[in-house]
């Protein structure tokens, strides 16, 4: 059984300029022990879909659809029920650890509180557990450092604290929203590696939300690519990287500057800008920027072609479940 099954998820925001459809009908599953990467650029809706599931939308936001966690619909739960799930079964880590930690409290106070509340441990047990988790994320000298305040930690160490906090309750699902984006590249490497190791040890499922294709390549089993509030492609990590079908996925892969490629002068760019969510184009939302766009792309939105675990929202054919080799730059990766 799928650990998480999301279907028909819509998220909307009422703004002075009009109604923004941030997530527009999304379906996906996360299996037990699996790592799903949700990839997209700003405005794709990847963060809001998680906020909606977790009951954390801003006041002007509303959501509908289903998000079945072990068969129970998160969208129908009361704040109290969700609170229980959030601590015990689903943990979240965010991009900027400083905004998720209380600057006035020591790491000890914050971690012990979480462990006591959600795991019903006594204080000294909770503290021992917290130290153990800090050791698991390879915090040097955890007995000492747990007494410090957030500002006494570096960015990378703060993110380790966040991960340790997330793991305190041994969650079934860890949702990591851009966990390495705010970090330096040398520290990113450390954190990505750490998450990979912990996943194996803790047998948890992970949703990794990111625009960083390299982190996804390293950590994920399957990938969901989003554009302007919709899923545009999904498949295994190999499908997406070696047999990308949707022109957006292909463009995205080609625009990453890479050190492992022969030196070339021009970077591939996707022309134009993402559409305004208040004023979406007719038909395919990507067509203005698409090198393969044709007349029919204007007329109606492409359907979400379902080939089992491999899906794409594009008029280009998926030949018998096997995606045709792209003509563009990413093809050389195969």
């Amino acid at each position, binding site marked *: 059984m799928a650990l998480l099954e999301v279907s028909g998820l819509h998220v909307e925001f009422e703004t002075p300029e009009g109604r923004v459809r941030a997530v527009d009908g999304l379906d996906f599953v996360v299996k037990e022990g699996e790592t799903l990467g949700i990839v997209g650029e700003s405005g794709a809706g990847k963060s809001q879909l998680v906020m909606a599931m977790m009951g954390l939308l801003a006041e002007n936001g509303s959501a509908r659809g289903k998000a079945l966690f072990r068969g129970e619909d998160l969208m129908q739960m009361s704040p109290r029920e969700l609170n229980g799930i959030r601590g015990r079964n689903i943990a979240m880590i965010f991009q900027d650890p400083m905004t998720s930690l209380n600057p006035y409290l020591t790491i000890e106070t914050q971690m012990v509180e979480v462990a006591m509340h959600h795991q019903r441990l006594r204080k000294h047990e909770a503290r021992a557990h917290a130290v153990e988790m800090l050791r698991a994320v390879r915090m040097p000298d955890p007995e000492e450092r747990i007494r410090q305040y957030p500002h006494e930690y570096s960015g990378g160490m703060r993110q380790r604290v966040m991960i340790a906090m997330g793991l305190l309750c041994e969650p079934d699902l860890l949702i990591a929203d851009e966990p390495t984006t705010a970090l330096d590249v040398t520290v990113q490497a450390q954190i990505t590696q750490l998450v990979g190791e912990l996943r194996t040890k803790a047998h948890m499922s992970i949703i990794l939300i990111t625009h960083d294709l390299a982190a996804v390549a390293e950590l994920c089993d399957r990938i969901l690519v989003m554009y302007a509030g919709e899923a545009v492609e999904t498949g295994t990590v190999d499908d997406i990287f070696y047999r990308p079908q949707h022109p957006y996925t292909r463009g995205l892969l080609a625009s990453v*500057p890479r050190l492992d490629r022969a030196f070339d002068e021009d970077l591939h760019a996707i022309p134009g800008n993402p559409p305004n969510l208040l004023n979406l184009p007719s038909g395919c939302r990507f067509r203005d920027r698409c090198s393969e766009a044709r007349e029919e792309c204007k007329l109606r939105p492409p359907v979400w072609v379902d080939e089992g675990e491999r899906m794409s929202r594009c008029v280009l054919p998926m030949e018998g479940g096997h995606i045709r080799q792209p003509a563009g730059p990413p093809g050389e990766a195969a």
Partner: protein
Amino acid sequence: MSKPVLRVQDLSVTFKNQTGGLLHRRERQIRAVDGISFDLHAGESLGIVGESGSGKSTLARAILGLVKSNRGRVLWMGEDLTAMDEEALRQKRKQLQIVFQDPIASLDPRMTAGDIIAEPLWTFHPNMARLQVEERTRGMMKMVGLLANQINRYPHEFSGGQCQRIGIARALVLNPRLVICDEPVSALDVSIQAQIINLLRDLQKKLGLALIFIAHDLSVVRHISDRVMVMYMGQAMELSEKTALFRRPLHPYTNALMRSVPIPDPKKAAQAARQTWLTGDMPSPYDPPSGCIFHTRCPYRIRRCTADVPVLRRMEHGDWAACHRAENLDLSIPATD
């Protein structure tokens, strides 16, 4: 070779701050930029790379006189900018421009795109005819890939990439000779990053600009620089011609930075299993390590590194490195693809 347009010599910036309460007041110092020297020629592009806290942005601001340096010189066409008064420096700024990281925050939200781009013209050429200003503004917009009919729009009506184009147009409107780009694409989505990097490179070639491009990521710098300087805790670790640097870094820190750049390819990522080349964090800048400033994180350190400070010295092929072991380490990057 022609004479360099910019010579930075032993430039240093120290920040002081006070800590402790009334009774235990202590003054602490950070050497944000510590003895940086380099030359830049017309039409040349220098990439400056380093992690947060390496001093790369402070260096940019010190070159332009936006923060005070406390040692060293910045020679622009032979004249020392650090010795000039405000007014003289202001006049020089026509030739020296900067593009900032956050494209949206660095634009005045109450001004139209056209006014933002034209403002430097009003300031430095107050007698320029209105029509001429507008013509020049439209010309700049076209050059950076904006549409003429967007001239009366406000920053919030543009996307991040378009705002950065406005920032670039503003920086170029006075025909500067040097443009410093301080992480101009870090805040942009990857598909847009490539647009802006390509645009900057094309403009640099077309206009023969001297360009300093600051980034925290070597993969970005590779597409736009002729030479690359790698900084760590305010100091230059290496200054090399680009091709040489990417083929065989001379400094262990350059090597670590390069190998930390993740590869967006599942098979290669699995193979490389991204060895952690750097352990630990950057040391506190209030209490920098003795000897080589990088020795606490260097996998190649020997006893000498904890005691002697390595100077940036010229190596066999004309590249520069600040490492005692630079001759003896082979840090070649295995060829791929």
